[in-house]
């Protein structure tokens, strides 16, 4: 085919994939032939913008009859190059289009278009092209199969792939004999290379074996594909046997979920960080509370002991008795010093304070819980009357409140069964931002409602109480408050935070 001056490319009329590109493509269009294999309309990127209308007609107009157009190619070194582009549909070799493009010598440009048409060796070109493609087909068994498959995949694969932007692969005898552009991109290789690569090299031997066996039993799974550049793609696939005429093939349809995978991993990591923060905050809060609770009785012991020691001394009692009480007081003081030291070590850390957009705060917390909400089939309803309103505080700490409230709501919905919704609203009331997390779970009876808001050191408090207590403490630290709003039908947690006003 290289005997022809100019560029030749062969395109599958059904799938619009490039089956062959001659080296002349690079010379004439100054573009990499690999680009044509990735996208059969690559050549049009080199066309002069003013000539695009006639050039683009060549892409779709040659399904039954031969057509030709002349246009200018913008060459980076030679400037505008006038070319003649002829597209020949072939009936003898299935659904392939043969494109022949060659430069029009300057001396011909002056001729009228009709004269130009007569000058081009149309019939010769067609014959040479056909002969070359036949040779190509004879040498390439996979291309032969592809040619035969074409009448079947025309309606199914192309339309399907376009509609859902899916990866579509056809596997036969341990090779990918067809990959649509999305599929080739996911596998990180040009589609023309795929038939030459054993499945085991693409998917690993275990998965390759499953795909081969899927001729009898289909499966659905996530496959991890190593690409030549070292990156890894995760594909969520459905692998099914498919009969195409006389051919039994394995049909793989899937979507690249690498991004979702990475996003899920990132979300999981963020949630994990939040959990750590919650544990650490809870521990600090509990420790501060514990220190307070211990220091109270220690203060009493010291005061009582001091009083007793003073009275003993003034009453002339046995000095050993007075001395013993003083030692008791000293020990209590020592215990107090230890509690203080531990409190300083594990007490509440300093927190960041900066303006935070209320909508963003809620949005990020909801985003982190999206996977869990979807897993539990819970419909999340979001309503916002806030625009760019901000509150001042530690974003991580405030997010802990919204996350905890969402977690509690999810638990409540799951425990109840139906209906499965959670509503999160943001609004502004006076100088405050209100964030409400509402679920249709069973509302708390009054005595439980009050207990839920008590300190977790209360013997009757539940695990829920610990997290809600922490949320209340965080809200309080931010000058806000967390209510459990009394309601007959719904469980409503309301977080009230003072709005941040930029100093003028």
């Amino acid at each position, binding site marked *: 085919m290289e005997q022809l001056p100019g560029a030749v490319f062969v395109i599958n009329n059904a799938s619009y994939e490039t089956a062959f590109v001659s080296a002349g493509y690079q010379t004439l269009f100054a573009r990499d032939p690999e680009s044509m294999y990735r996208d059969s309309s690559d050549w049009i990127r080199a066309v002069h913008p003013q000539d695009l209308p006639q050039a683009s007609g060549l892409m779709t107009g040659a399904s039954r009859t031969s057509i030709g157009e002349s246009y200018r190619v913008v060459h980076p070194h030679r400037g505008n190059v006038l070319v003649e582009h002829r597209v020949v549909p072939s009936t003898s070799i299935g659904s392939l289009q043969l494109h022949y493009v060659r430069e029009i010598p300057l001396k011909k440009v002056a001729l009228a278009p009709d004269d130009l048409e007569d000058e081009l060796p149309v019939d010769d070109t067609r014959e040479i092209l056909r002969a070359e493609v036949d040779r190509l087909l004879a040498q390439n068994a996979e291309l032969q199969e592809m040619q035969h498959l074409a009448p079947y995949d025309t309606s199914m694969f192309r339309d399907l792939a376009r509609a859902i932007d899916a990866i579509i692969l056809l596997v036969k005898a341990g090779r990918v004999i067809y990959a649509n552009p999305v599929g080739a991109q996911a596998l990180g290789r040009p589609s023309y290379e795929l038939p030459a690569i054993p499945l085991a090299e693409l998917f690993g031997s275990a998965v390759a074996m499953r795909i081969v066996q899927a001729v009898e039993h289909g499966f659905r799974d996530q496959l991890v594909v190593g690409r030549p550049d070292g990156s890894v793609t995760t594909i969520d696939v459905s692998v099914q046997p498919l009969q195409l005429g006389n051919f039994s093939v394995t049909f793989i349809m899937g979507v690249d979920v690498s991004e979702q995978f990475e996003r899920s991993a990132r979300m999981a990591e963020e949630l994990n960080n939040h959990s750590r923060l919650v544990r650490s905050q809870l521990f600090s809060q509990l420790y501060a509370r514990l220190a*307070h609770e211990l220091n109270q009785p220690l*203060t009493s012991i010291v005061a009582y002991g001091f009083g007793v020691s003073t009275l003993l001394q003034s009453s002339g009692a046995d000095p050993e008795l007075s001395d013993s009480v003083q030692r008791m007081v000293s020990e209590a003081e020592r215990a*107090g010093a230890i509690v203080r030291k531990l409190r300083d070590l594990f007490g509440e850390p300093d927190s960041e304070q900066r303006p935070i957009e209320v909508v963003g705060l809620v949005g990020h917390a909801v985003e982190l819980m999206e996977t869990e909400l979807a897993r539990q089939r819970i419909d999340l309803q979001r309503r916002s009357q806030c625009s760019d309103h901000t509150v001042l505080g530690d974003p991580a700490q405030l997010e802990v409140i919204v996350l905890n409230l969402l977690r509690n709501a999810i638990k409540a919905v799951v425990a109840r069964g139906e209906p499965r919704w959670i509503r999160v609203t943001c609004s502004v009331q006076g100088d405050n931002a209100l964030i409400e997390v509402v679920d249709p779970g069973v509302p708390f009876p009054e005595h439980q409602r009050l207990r839920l808001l008590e300190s977790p050191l209360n013997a009757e408090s539940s695990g829920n109480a610990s997290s809600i207590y922490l949320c209340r403490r965080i809200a309080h630290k931010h000058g806000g408050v967390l209510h459990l709003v009394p309601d007959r039908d719904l469980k409503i947690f309301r977080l009230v935070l003072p709005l941040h006003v930029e100093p003028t």
Partner: protein
Amino acid sequence: MIVIIDDDPAICRSLAFALKALGHPSQSYPNPLAFLKDPVDAGLIFLDHRMPEMTGLEFIKAHPEIINSTPTILMSAYAHEIRQEALDLNIVTVLDKPFPPSVLVDLLKEHLGPTASG
């Protein structure tokens, strides 16, 4: 008369006992509001900080006239958190609970003069 304001009855009773042993009568209140409702002429006030109805600092801010006329000592298990703010409001000192008896004796001497037992 020494006034003790603390929501923990054990603190009120034990501190009153220690003061009595040193020869100082005292009157205890469970919160600042109770003191405001039925005040006594105090020579010294021991005021707790963390109380449910009104914190010690809130009381001080709301009634500077009391603090300016009567030496007031703030007590807290979180003294480090409020010390500077309290001192700026004319508080004599902030005691970190539990505090050594020697500190108590020194404060009494400084503000009420020596007692028979001290």
